[in-house]
């Protein structure tokens, strides 16, 4: 299959390209014009075609989609102000979908996020799955959640116009260089942590597990028209994950703990004060905004049942193996070149 992967040089994208190549696909890897290729082991693989363009503009997009069977759309912006994220996530998606229509490509594996769910109105301890309600008040959430919600609307519109879409919502993705997780709390400089909560289950997805699920979804007819959450098996609690993380750190950080109950009460009080006395005009830090706080720390349970059933997928790596691989010297992006290709080149 010829796959067109946007955001190919991003944290998840680079693993998706590697996994797609291992599974025998040809990949058009979309990277930005100035992206440095040196860290991408697969950049000169014979089945990779590098497509240098910026999705915030249409230039060259339709031409580069010619002959593609399926698009895996990952490109998004997670940092910067709302308008920066809007351009990098929403306008980029709008341009891609417009180009796909013009190039008459229908199949899309669209990567969304757990951030689109409505955590505030979910009861603690409940199972968050694909049927859980989406956020109804995006303005109470961060820019990432706001723009990803708009992005999902664009996917639905594309589907209504005849597109075949599988929406994949990964949980919190971790892996090499990204082992710290926002569900633990906040890093205070380089040597201290503020831990919020202790026993909430973390909706984690190890990057290689997630990449495999996404590539399978792009191959799988049954995934079309579906929304599928991706998390690992045997999800750890915050304490277990933090302990594991510290095992692999050279120096143990000084840790300050705030319980979920206390921080929830503080956030609720701050929100009420803002609502009653400041007419909701105050912009408080995220941990004092209930909708943002609940999205990161609320104790919930998570299911990957649908992913297993629809994709016939099982997360390959456990938490322990994921940490071992992430902290090893192994090149996780290395893809062997098939013998037939080697002999053809020779």
């Amino acid at each position, binding site marked *: 299959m010829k796959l067109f992967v946007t955001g190919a040089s991003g944290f998840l994208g680079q693993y998706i390209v590697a996994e797609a190549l291992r599974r025998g696909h040809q990949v058009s890897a979309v990277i*930005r*014009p*100035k992206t440095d290729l040196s860290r991408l082991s697969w950049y000169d693989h014979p089945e990779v075609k590098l497509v240098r363009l*910026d999705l*915030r*503009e249409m230039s060259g997009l339709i031409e580069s989609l010619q002959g593609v069977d399926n698009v895996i759309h990952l490109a998004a912006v997670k940092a*910067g*102000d709302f*308008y*920066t994220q*809007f351009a990098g996530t*929403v*306008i980029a*998606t*709008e341009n891609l979908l417009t180009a796909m229509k013009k190039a008459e490509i229908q199949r899309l594996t669209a990567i969304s996020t757990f951030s689109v769910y409505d955590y505030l109105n979910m009861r603690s301890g409940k199972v968050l799955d694909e049927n859980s309600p989406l956020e109804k008040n995006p303005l109470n959430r961060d820019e990432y959640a706001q723009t990803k919600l*708009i992005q999902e609307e*664009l996917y639905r519109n594309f589907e209504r116009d005849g597109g075949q879409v599988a929406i994949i919502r990964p949980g919190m993705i971790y892996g090499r260089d990204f082992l710290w997780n926002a569900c633990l709390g906040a890093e205070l400089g380089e040597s201290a942590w503020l831990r919020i909560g202790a026993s909430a289950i973390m909706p984690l997805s190890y990057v290689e597990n997630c990449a495999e699920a996404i590539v399978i979804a792009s191959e799988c007819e049954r995934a079309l028209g579906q929304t599928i959450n991706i998390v690992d098996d045997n999800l750890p609690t915050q304490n277990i994950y933090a302990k594991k993380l510290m095992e692999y750190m050279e120096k143990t950080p000084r840790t300050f703990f705030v319980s979920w109950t206390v921080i929830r009460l503080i956030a609720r009080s701050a929100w009420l004060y803002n609502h009653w006395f*400041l007419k909701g*005009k*105050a*912009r*408080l830090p995220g941990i004092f905004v209930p909708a943002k706080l609940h999205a990161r720390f609320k104790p919930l349970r998570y299911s990957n049942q649908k992913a297993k059933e629809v994709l016939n997928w099982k997360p390959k790596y456990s938490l322990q193996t994921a940490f071992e691989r992430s902290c090893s010297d192994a090149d996780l992006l290395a893809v062997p070149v098939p013998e037939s290709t080697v002999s053809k080149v020779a």
Partner: protein
Amino acid sequence: MTTLVRTSTLKATVIGTGLISKEHLSFLAESNRANLVGVCDLSEAAANYATQRFGAKKFYTNYRQMLDEVKPDVVHILTPPHTHKTIAMDCLQAGAHVICEKPITPTYDEFKELWSFAKQCDRHLIENQNYRFNQPIFKLQKLVQEGTLGEVEDIEVRMALDIRSGGRYADENLPSPVHKLPGGVIHDFLTHLCYLTLLFLQDFDGVKVAWNNYGGGDLFKYDDLDALVFSGSKHARIRFSSYTQPDCFSVILRGSRGYAEADLFQPYVRCIVPRAVGKQLSPLANQFSNGWTLMSASVNNFRRKLLQQTPYEGLHFLLDETYKALQENKPLPIGFEDMELTSRLVNALVSQENYL
């Protein structure tokens, strides 16, 4: 100019939904002088979002279609500078007054052409010169008018912004269109620097300017500006720096009796003038007074930050005054002289014959 004597709301539309649109649209959404009837952007998703977020009636992706259907009284043009003239002419021809983001045109000649066209169409043309209407600037003007500083002889307008190490201007993948302005990215801020200088200098008869690109590379044309502007015996310095921190937008006025300093990003005004306690004790009195000023400013600025009050307070004031003037057929807060003089100074600063 055709009179528009009425107190009913004015039909307003917005073209361009980038970063600055948030300020224009939030004003229009809350103002009882304006009725936001349309929003236009090349991106349907962006136009649709702005329409829903700020309660506009309808969104468009073609501004000419919007002008035909809606027939707005006022159009806000918030697109990149090189598009202003064409869009503004279409809006003026369609019978709308135009409020345009800075710089109104990339060159002085284009400004004159556009102004002449607005006169032909009997419509108003207003450039956004928002910082003129910020509280610290009003305070400085009051100090000058009351003679507290004596005769103002020296003016310094300085902006420090770390534009090189990140953000939209440093994006090499999709360079901002303002890189193509004659003064590069700094040109995008030059209007602000110039109208604030002219607010206190009144006019100018000579300019010397040093443009530099200390960071090198192909993306930035310049990242540093140092200019001297002369008006008779008065001097002004216009400075843009990418390498000094923290970010600031300061105005310093030095007069024959004393001096005053203001910052627009972290608002405060401090003043060093002769005090009633006499020449010997005036320095001490000034330090006590300035200490109190800075402490008060820290509390006020914490409150401003918490309540999301931005340096765009002047834009909301300017827009309200503009709509009021249009409704009541009174003089606009930004007139031809303000725009012409500003555009002429910007032109002088980017003219090679004035380079050091």
